[in-house]
């Protein structure tokens, strides 16, 4: 199964389940969780079932394209089910079967991994799902997002598509992974990984990044005050990504981190509050349908 076939299969599986299939969000995000369709939709009482592929950037994870399965940008498949259904684990396992895994021939484990995204004030309890020792999915029951309690609770599934694809094709290096029948991931991704690793670790202008962080923060605050939570949130994402770049450049100490994280978290909280208040003013329209 090629990489792109894998994407088609999970899309199809979750579309059949009843999910809205969205397209990737167009701001840099560290994880599919950070897209508005997860972090904001998880807030408030309105039900939702949504899934989408999301390219996610983790500057510190870059390895100049040389590590077989670590990248500064990787593809996630994100599912949000709100409220979490009682058979969510079984449905998830069925999705693995749908992509061709024989569950009796593999070791699938749900290993405690209480997920937390401190920059977003988001936290949940759940697992990392290990397939033969490889973490293929983060499975989380959202308890809190944007520092607000989640009621009802959403189940969030984040598949690491690259790892799954490698497992299915039984290759141990992304460079050998077939994206389709003619092109490998190595051919598509290597140069991107190499250049961005150089940028993230060596070339990024630290002074400029510090300035950008401040500018993005100020803009987010201004937009929150204007009750424009959605545009404001884009600037929160930019803040967060800039923070990650600064971290990749080694410009933030572990003792300095908490203060920076708190700045982003405060923004996310205000966006979340404004977003929920606005949905309430609209009468929580999805609650009726």
């Amino acid at each position, binding site marked *: 199964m090629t990489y792109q076939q894998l994407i088609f299969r999970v899309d199809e599986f979750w579309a059949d389940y009843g999910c809205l299939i969205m397209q990737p969000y167009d701001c840099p995000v560290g994880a599919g969780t950070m897209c508005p369709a997860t972090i904001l939709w998880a807030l408030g009482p309105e039900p939702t079932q949504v899934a989408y592929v999301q390219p996610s950037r983790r500057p510190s994870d870059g390895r100049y394209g040389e590590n077989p399965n670590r990248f500064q940008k990787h593809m996630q498949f994100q599912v949000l089910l709100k409220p979490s259904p009682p058979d969510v684990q079984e449905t998830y396992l069925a999705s693995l079967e749908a992509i061709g895994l024989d569950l009796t021939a593999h070791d699938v484990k749900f290993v405690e991994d209480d997920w937390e995204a401190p920059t977003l004030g988001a936290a949940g309890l759940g697992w990392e799902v290990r397939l*033969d020792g490889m973490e293929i999915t983060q499975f989380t029951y959202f308890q809190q997002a944007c520092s607000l309690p989640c009621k009802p609770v959403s189940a969030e599934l984040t598949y690491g598509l690259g790892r799954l694809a490698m497992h299915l094709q039984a290759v141990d290096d992304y460079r050998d992974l077939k994206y389709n029948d003619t092109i490998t991931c190595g051919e598509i991704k290597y140069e991107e990984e190499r250049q961005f690793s150089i940028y993230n670790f060596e070339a990024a202008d630290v002074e400029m990044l510090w300035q950008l962080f401040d500018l993005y923060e100020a803009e987010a605050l201004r937009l929150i005050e204007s009750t424009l939570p959605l545009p404001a949130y884009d600037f929160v994402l930019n803040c967060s990504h800039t923070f990650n770049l600064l971290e990749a450049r080694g410009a933030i100490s572990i*003792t300095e981190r908490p203060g920076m994280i708190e700045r982003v978290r405060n923004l996310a909280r205000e966006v979340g509050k404004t977003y929920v208040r606005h949905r309430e003013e609209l009468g929580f329209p999805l609650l009726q349908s």
Partner: protein
Amino acid sequence: MPDLLFEIGTEEMPANVVLPALDQMAQMMGEGLDGLRLSHGEIATYATPRRLAVLVSDTADRQPDREVEYKGPPAERAFTEDGDPTDAAFGFAKARGVDVGHLAVKETDNGVFVSVTVKEEGRPAVEVLPEMLTEIIAALDFPKTMRWGSLDVRFIRPIRWLVALLGSEVVPIQVAGLESSRVTWGHRALSPEPVELQDAADYLDALEQAYVIADHRLRRHTIIEQAQAIAAEVNGTAVLHDDIVNENHFLVEWPLCILGSFDQRYLELPDEVITTVMEKHQSYFPVAAESGALMAKFIVVANVAQDAADIVRAGNENVIGPRLADAEFYIQADTKITPEQSLDKLRRVTFLENLGTLYDKTTRLQVLAKWLCERIGADEAELATTQRAALLSKTDQISQMIGDTKLAGLQGTIGGYYALVAGEDRTVSQAIAEQYMPVAADSALPVTMAGALLAVADKIDNLASSFFVGAEPSGTKDPMGLRRQAHGIIAICMDRRLRFSLDDIVSLDMGLLPDLPEAQTPDIAKATARLNDFMAARIENFLQAAGVSYDIVRAVLATCWDDAVETIERAEALAGIRAEDGEFEAAVDTATRPANIVRPTDLPADVQVDAELFVEPIEQRLWDAHRECAEHVVAALSGRCDYLAAWEALKSLREPIDDYFIQVMVNVEDEQLRTNRLAVMRELDRLYLRFADFTQIVQ
């Protein structure tokens, strides 16, 4: 009699919560059954990642009948003088469902009352059990709980099924939108169909048929045996750390240990890095050769049947390789940077907000370490090692290895390794590696003196800095683990008997901290005092853990203490004296007399004893005895810390003090006389306080 089975089926629970939850369940079940007067046999517990179960043998299916006596109104209200029942008697009889003729009259301590004894029929167990079982679920205490769906229930993970069976009969309960039944579930993949239990007693066998070993003790045993056997096949030994074994036996329901390999070249990585990757990332068991050296092997505990072994092995081998490659990548990248370059980078890394950089911290550590070296009389070589180690101590903080959160626990260890690679002296490397010790209560302490001094200096600086900016622990909030660090200081100091003044080193350190923005300028004296109280509380914990009684600890900490080791030794000495010396109680009684009389007064601080004002001969005798005793006490306590000698000297005051109180009245009318006598009392009190505040001793 039937068995009682209660199984809570959940989504996968965290491994470390299962055993404590089982203990609670067993205890609540026992108390609950006793409370319901249901006789029972043994209470057994079983658990897997997906279930918590209690199986009680020979449980009564019905409560025994019993006779219950109910107290009614006073006899004088229940019966007229003629002995006829009143309305009160009729009302009471009716409420208890008996004829008024069955009422008895009983004399009690509070008077004479009407009573009735009613025979109560026992209820069937299936009727009384539901409330008790429901209560168990509600009362289970977990370190962290969650909500799910639209429910308002909290539990460790979502509850998915409930089995409650008394013999073959379902005990009906409803929790979290579920109803109990006789249906449990087997292994997710190997036995996906529901498992219907005919009888509670079938539990273990039925689950085994469904590829679940429900008995966790058996699973643990199986894992250990399998791991040892497959390691032996390659002439190795499985490295079975308890925490990893424990985690694994609650990750699987049907364990199969599988041996895998990784590339030999990764063995060049430091052992701590390899084992951290294996154990902390992957929950694998490392494998060691006969020599003790690590082999390029690992053992994974899988939740599969034998025929899946090859696929699972190959999958895991594909995981561990890149993980180790990551660590190798970090080391290659990190060691390209010289220690001097790293130091320079530390100048741009903030330590704590407003408290300068990690480089500044490094500078402070050098000063503190030098000060400590002087206090303990370290030689030139030790001083040089400590200085160099302090300078390089934080360079790993900017490394990529420590930047990886899953490897951050290697801080110090990896710094020591990088120092060695950079050609630093082995003693310097080891001191750097030991600076965060002890990493937990009761874990290893630094082996080298330089490591011990650096570890103390680092912790002192963290404490002093945090208190300086007012970021001290409160309640459960202690993000930097300052309590643990303070305990670490005490443990290291006691281990090596490092004697120094906490006040002095804290003042020295606070003096080195940068000025804060004006509005936040701290009151250093107050910050020091709060830190002092904080350390006193840790010393108290240390002594209580050592079995020293509370009043002794308080008596010693109520004095002017300054040196943790000396204070602890003094408390231990006093505890020993109390145990050994038959005169202890009497001596303490005497010791408290001057305190009791002088402390409640407002004697001005500047009043001195004037021997000219003594009237009775005993006054001069006591004063002479005081002077002589003081000389002995000071000599005994300063320097050699001979607490027994100090105690013996203090005991010499007993006779003159007791005589004094027989012959002399302190609180006399004459103010000059009274003041002078109180001044004598204060000097005596102060002398005792050099050892302990004996008024704190509970006789």
